[in-house]
């Protein structure tokens, strides 16, 4: 909310219509719970009627040994091709406000 209202104010917005969020698969964020909380905290602000658009980001890792990029299934952080444990997480931990649509 702080991020949304600060950015809206900087741009002299009258009303926030849409908030686009990036939410990684490996964050403890439950979209329905987030929407519910958002509707409570947004009351009485210029974002009260804003729609939350949540884009999920899959948990993807890259093997440092063989270079393979793979979806991490069942939180097994071992390379799906060569079994190496040297893997780097590429995506899936995001929790970010991407953009706002305002009037």
């Amino acid at each position, binding site marked *: 909310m702080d*991020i949304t209202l600060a950015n809206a104010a900087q741009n002299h*917005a009258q009303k926030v219509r849409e908030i686009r969020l990036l939410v990684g698969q490996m964050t*403890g964020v439950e979209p329905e719970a987030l929407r519910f909380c958002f509707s409570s905290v947004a009351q009485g602000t210029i974002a009260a009627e804003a729609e939350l658009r949540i884009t999920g980001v899959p948990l993807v890792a890259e093997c440092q040994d063989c270079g393979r990029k793979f979806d991490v299934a069942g939180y097994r*952080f071992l390379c799906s091709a060569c079994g190496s444990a040297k893997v780097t997480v590429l995506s899936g931990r*995001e929790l970010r406000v991407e*953009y706002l649509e305002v009037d």
Partner: protein
Amino acid sequence: MEIQVKENILGKNDQIAAEINALLSAHHIFALNLMGSPGSGKTSLLERTVAALQGELRLAVIEGDLFTSKDADRIARQGTTVVQINTSGGCHLDANMVKTALDKLDLSGLDLIIIENVGNLVCPAEFNIGEDARATVLSITEGEDKPLKYPLAFKEAGIVILNKMDLLPYTSFDLAGATEDIVSLNPAVAIASVSCRTGAGLDDWIEWLKRQAADKQAGQPQADLAGHLRLG
């Protein structure tokens, strides 16, 4: 009108956490974020740790608790400096709470700060609090399914302490399966199997802790255990 934002929701917390880490690093203090379920034995482990490190490392403890000072009282009884944070129902510590607690400590006289987080395997793992490393306590009686059910708490730990090992024969806990799950989540993790009741296995944990503190003392960069998964 469209406004490009691209701002991390936990960005403010991460910024304060980075300030804390810089401050503690300037004093060569190793900071540990101790996590685990309610009743897993975090405070019992701390009591054992305080006793084992007496005269070796200068230690202070920050105790996170929802409402009470029960844990802080247990630590204070051992003659160690302890600062209480009450979260008033909040389920985790955040960086700002820890920053406030640090104001009450004389950093020039410390080698090690252990921050006992609120008992919870979910939210504490999401918040950096300026630590160098995380330790997650899992007790045998919680069941071997917990690492995969609460992956982040184990994925980002530098060490996992399996506590209440003395109860292993009385449970159906699958030790090999739990270990395999922890390692597949976090291949570089250290694992210490201990009993805070009998004292068995605690040497491994104490040695790990001393090594981390010595590395920090020597100014060596810590393995990036806390923040490396925070992307974007």
